[in-house]
């Protein structure tokens, strides 16, 4: 098992405050929401880096059907680690309906105990609940049930990073779901595309009751490749990992 201090990330990959932010987001119990970018869910792969390098296992609850194991393989190669090591440490379950996701959320604490991990990544939340084939009241009911479970996770010492894609078509239900999720979160970050790369901005909107986190970081993640290339289901696309660097903005 790797200890945080001995993680072999090349010095150029992450810089001070940003590294601390990634570290913090993935290491302390909480329910952190990352949203605002149309491809937030796909970008979630970058957040696997820190726990994997710490030698931890991660549960990946994929409601956006975006998990790409080839990225882990490329990442492992860049870190000169056997790909199998990273591949075995990430446990994935895909949910294709909101009912499946709600069930999965309910089963996750037991799965976390079974796989001896406390790190959980969720994608496509709450997007999967905004389903045109489902009555909004039903979607809200199922979401409330899932949220009830999610809120308990920090007390069970679980760290959950929830990735929510910016909607292509805003809907009242989608707005309601996002608001409800933010209100239950311990922190909400907006993933923004800037001319220099991607930027994580902590959101403190008036409608969300957010806990003040002790790190007041505005971090930007510069990426030499175009963000669109992140989405390519291609091992080569994982090359972005090497150029993923973060700098602080104050």
């Amino acid at each position, binding site marked *: 098992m790797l200890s945080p201090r001995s993680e072999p990330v090349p010095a150029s990959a992450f810089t001070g405050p940003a590294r601390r932010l990634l570290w913090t987001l993935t290491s302390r119990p909480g329910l952190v929401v990352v949203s605002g970018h149309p491809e937030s869910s796909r970008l979630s792969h970058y957040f696997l880096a820190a726990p994997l390098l710490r030698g931890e296992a991660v549960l990946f609850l994929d409601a956006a059907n975006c998990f790409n194991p080839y990225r882990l393989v490329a990442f492992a190669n860049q870190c000169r680690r056997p790909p199998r090591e990273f*591949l075995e440490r990430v446990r994935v379950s895909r949910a294709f309906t909101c009912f499946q996701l709600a069930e999965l959320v309910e089963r996750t604490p037991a799965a976390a105990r079974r796989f001896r991990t406390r790190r959980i990544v969720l994608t496509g939340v709450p997007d999967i609940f905004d389903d045109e084939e489902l009555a909004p009241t039903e979607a809200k009911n199922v979401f409330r049930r899932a949220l009830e479970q999610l809120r308990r996770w920090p007390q069970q010492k679980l760290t959950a990073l929830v990735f929510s894609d910016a909607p292509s078509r805003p809907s009242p239900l989608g707005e309601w779901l996002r608001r409800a999720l933010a209100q239950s979160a311990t922190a909400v970050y907006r993933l923004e595309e800037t001319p220099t790369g991607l930027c994580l901005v902590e959101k403190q909107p008036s409608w969300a009751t957010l806990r003040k986190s002790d790190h007041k970081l505005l971090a930007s993640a510069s990426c030499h490749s175009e963000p669109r290339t992140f989405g390519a289901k291609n091992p080569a696309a994982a090359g972005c990992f090497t150029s993923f660097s973060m700098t602080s903005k104050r």
Partner: protein
Amino acid sequence: MLWVIDAGQPACPAGRRRRRLVDSSFVPSFYVGGALDRIAQLTPDLSARFSVRLDWVERQELWSGDWQTVLQVGVQRLEQFAQVVHWVHQRAPRLELFNCDISLPALYAYEKGVFPLARCSFEVEGPDRPEQPAERLRALAVEDDPWTTRYELPPLTVMEWRLEGDSRNPHHGHRGALEVRVEDRVETLAEEDPGELLATLARRLRQDDPDILLTDWGDSFLLPRLLKAAERARLPLPLNRDPAYAAHHKRARSYFSYGRIVFKDSSTTLFGRVHIDRKNSFVVGETDLEGLFELSRLTKLPLQYMARTSTGTGITSMQLDRALQQGILIPWQKREPEEFKSARQLLLSDRGGLVFKPILGFHENVGELDFASMFPSIMARFNVSPETINCRCGCPARVPEIGYGICQRRRGLVPQVVAPVIEKRARYKRLLGEAADPAARARYDDRQNALKWLLVTCFGYLGYKNARFGRIEAHEAINAFGREKLLVAKEVSERAGFRLLHAIVDSLWVQKRDATREDYEHLARMLEAATDLPIALEGVYKYIVFLPSRRNRSVPVPNRYFGAFAGSHKIKVRGLEVRRHDAPPLVARMQEEVLQLLAEAHDAGSYRGKLAEAVAVLARFEEQLREGRVAWEDLVIRKRLTQEPQKYQKNSLVAVAAQALEACGVKLRPGEVIEYVITAADSLVPAERARPVALLNGFSSYDREKYLELLRKAFEPFSLYFAQAPTTY
């Protein structure tokens, strides 16, 4: 309510009686599962509020196969069914509901064992006049079997409505007089006086009293417009047999399916009479009315519904029926998630079928061997079903590569449904081979084709998010079996001295010098024994040409070839314009003519000789184009809109044509197909590049150079390997 054709009593307008029967014995039920004390708390309120019959019963849970005690709620008043379900769900959201969202007509059919177009005997009582409230059904006995291949259909009267001329989309501008046909009698009704038109239609409907109204564009255009005109003119238009109801209209919508946008047109359905729109029915488009009747009988779905839904819904209906017969509880919401697996396991399991890219070029004496209904056969043979994969009883790993277990103790629901469909299709294929009468051959072919579509979708549905009995692990298991079987087939073929030229999921093309048809048939039997799956020799090709990618001639691509079968002039083509829906008919016709010529060749030498004649065919088509002798109908290109016309960023031909239509007031939605002709592809003025068919006039001209280019490109595959010496084995 049932509508029946009384075959026993000669009377009424068309010599047979149509009777409306009401079966008040039908009490649809749903089930409530969960903590028994919590369910018990519900019952007093439930009984007080609604007219329900409550019983504690034992039913089987789908995933575990365990029998459990649940509350059966029989709803006495049909119109309250959804309301009662909603009430229970609201009062006790933690309790599980089962069998609560099955459509009531289908549920009636499952419970009574009856199906559309079945021959039945009835005992009835009550009024005996169609204009009076319906007769009451006292008893019903089905004297028919949905699994028989030799059934007699009821004597149906079919009335056809279509606009005169080509059946082009009237929403995009096509207009014509209304043609009404019953058997061989055709009447053309001019639209000048709507009152007269409506009166004539009403008279014809009363006079002929059709059972089926078969239309082109009836769903979204003809029927809604006629009904609106009747309303405006305050004239009756008895589209429905049942005067108590108005025609039912459902709105159009666009949605994403398998990565592409699909447009589902609106629908207009009738009561007491069946309306089928040929232009809005996949099943009728693919398999004609015979295929629709076959599917409706097997799936127990009403004809109008089956005509407009997918075959996936059909197979689901059969699964629901089977589950109901076996006392299996049908979950309301699909909740069972994928089991956690490592990213490494996902890498192994989340894969499709196996493909060996083709060896490019001209090959002689090639055999094609196809697994018959490979994926459904795997389900049936290896018991692959959502509830049998990684079953809770812990049966050993049986799925190759990915090591999933398959239950050995109980037969899965999906295999139970699929196996008889495979068997019935095989029977139809045998009958097709034996039948000499062209009408009988067409009938059997339509029916076997309809069953093919049921089987095709039953695999895809296992991985479909909304499929009732879908589960991704079952989908992955089938793919794993498929890959394994194809690999075994390749190895066995190579050990027997055959050379593998190409293989794609469930078909393989092999070659051996001087091998006879018997040798290939022997190989098929060897493969069948080795894989434990049915495999058939599709045919032996005199020659086959595997073609490269259009963009790069050194890159092989699967499923792009043409070949001529030995012993006949039959040809098989994949991936060429002649098979594509968007190719102009002129180009497709040129390829057809050329292929007919080339089918006469038997080896590389004779092929080269025929190619000279084929070049002359191309020259003839080119000449027609240059001289402007081609009708615009032969130049039409059909394309699907991937977005709303105004959202196209580039002035592509399809964007230009769509925007021109929209400028004329035509509302277009993503997924709709539009038709256009290229007028000046390189024009600096985008609007001049293409013109939608509806806006063509006598002054429109086509882009000769562009169409010449399309013709030449379409000819390239035939001459590709003959600029130099052909590659032969």
